[in-house]
């Protein structure tokens, strides 16, 4: 293992025969959940991205199969209830899912079969990482990949609360959270994600974010020339852009693609919870506890005196009546 892997520029290339050393190191981490002051890496990896061109997708689910194969997950066999999705939702064992929508275009009255590959978007500003209370359970690398480090995960589900895309799923078996890793283990050795490699129509492509944006722009141009005048890129700015992004033929209406959020961002509720509540709450509790302790030690206590003990005796002996009245 002498040679270090190159940074992957495509998912198409085949791996080298000889073993190579990982090129995605702990020192390439730029953000760590529940951790302040992460030492910033000495090098900046080139930003990577996976582009999903919805207009090219044929719904074959090869990406799902490749994902299961590479990640060695075993999604449960479910019952056919008459929909195309299989399984019915993302699960701790299914990191990516083709979501199918039958949509009648009101302008043309044509039925359009919209197929969107759902999965982690690898946000530049990840809500899961912001919400996570467990130090080191979620990390973000300088190439943009957001990864769950399962040995640190406590299974609380806060990442579910934080994610604007409803992606993480908590396993009922080991109580840890799972989602697409963008095949960080493949990227580490110079390979693209398994789904992109398996895609027969190159609806899924992988490379540097810059290359993918250029490619996406070409695709948008092509779609526009074919009459999809609202074709465009879905790379939502509300989460700082994403490292998995779409080309949509109806980019003006993302929600028709099985409720793809129009303007995803980390919810202000989550921001408030993890921001001012956390800081101010800790300060208030700290001041109250310390203040009470200091006051308790130094302030004059409220003590019963001998006179009151005597008065109590008198009161009890007299059966509850004294000079101040009776019951």
């Amino acid at each position: 293992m002498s040679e270090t892997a190159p940074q992957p520029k495509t998912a198409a290339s085949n791996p080298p025969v000889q073993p190579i050393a990982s090129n995605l190191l702990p020192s390439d981490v730029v953000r760590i959940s529940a951790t302040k002051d992460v030492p910033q890496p000495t090098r900046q990896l080139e930003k990577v991205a996976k582009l999903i061109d919805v207009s090219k997708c044929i719904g074959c689910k090869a990406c799902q199969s490749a994902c299961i194969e590479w990640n060695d997950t075993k999604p449960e066999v479910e019952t056919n209830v008459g929909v195309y999705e299989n399984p019915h939702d993302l699960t701790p064992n299914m990191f990516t899912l083709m979501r199918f929508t039958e949509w009648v275009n009101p302008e043309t009255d044509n039925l359009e079969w919209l197929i969107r590959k759902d999965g982690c978007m690898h946000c530049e500003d990840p809500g899961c990482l912001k919400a996570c209370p467990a130090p080191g359970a979620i990390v973000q690398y300088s190439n943009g990949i957001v990864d769950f480090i399962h040995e640190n995960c406590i299974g609380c589900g806060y990442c579910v609360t934080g994610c604007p895309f409803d992606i993480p799923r908590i396993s009922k078996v080991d109580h840890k959270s799972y989602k697409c890793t963008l095949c960080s283990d493949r990227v580490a050795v110079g390979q693209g994600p398994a789904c992109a490699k398996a895609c027969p129509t190159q609806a899924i492509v992988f490379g540097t974010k810059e290359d993918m944006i250029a490619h996406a722009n070409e695709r948008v141009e092509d779609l526009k020339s074919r009459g999809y005048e609202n074709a465009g890129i879905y790379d939502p700015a509300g989460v700082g852009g994403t490292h998995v992004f779409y080309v949509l033929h109806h980019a003006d209406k993302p929600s028709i693609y099985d409720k793809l959020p129009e303007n995803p961002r980390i919810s202000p509720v989550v921001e408030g919870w993890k921001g001012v509540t956390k800081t101010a709450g800790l300060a208030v509790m700290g001041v109250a506890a310390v203040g009470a302790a200091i006051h308790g030690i130094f302030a004059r206590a409220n003590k019963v005196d001998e006179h009151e003990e005597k008065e109590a005796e008198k009161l009890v002996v007299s059966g509850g009546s004294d000079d101040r009245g009776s019951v």
Partner: protein
Amino acid sequence: MPRPLYSEPGDRIESTRPVTVSRYRGFIRANHWITALSLILLLVSGLAFFHPSLYFLTGLFGGGQTARWLHPIIGVVLFVSFMVMFIQLWRLNLPTPDDRKWLNQIGDVVKGNEENLPELGKYNAGQKFIFWGMTLLIVVLIVSGIMIWEQFFGELVSIPTRRWAVLTHALAAVAIILVFILHVYAAFWTRGTLRAMTRGTVTGGWAYRHHRKWLRELAGRRQNGPAE
């Protein structure tokens, strides 16, 4: 016999020279300490999830995973134990006209000038505030807590609702910790109070100074009540 106004039927004068008064029997004391222990465990584990600088507290439970599954279970224990206490205590914690006078003279309370304050039944307005504050916050915490209990109720509410639940849970937790600090502080500052929850009795002087109507009623009952 009609229900007493200022005391529980079980409260009584235990001895006269010196006077000691039974304030809490064994069951409620034991239950109170179950609530207290639960609250402390919840506070420690909850703070660990609340702020990264306190995450190390999960170590007391054997790690983050254990703290994560234990926290809500202790929450249910606290809820049940507190509800039992609620049933036993709510009646004498209802507000009375004396509470307003007491609150208006809060300065005298803080200075310890109790001779200026109205005579009170078993609880003063401060104690009632703690009782009702705890009640309200515990209900808010159990409801919001179940909504975010991933292990068993992960699908119960939508994710946007869950965001509000987690925020509410955090805010209510901060509030209940403040009430808890006030409770412990007041019990400590007002000397002679803690024994009511340990031995179950208070001195006559304590009852005379802080809860004279309560003492007066017990004294009257002792003399006029059924033969012992």
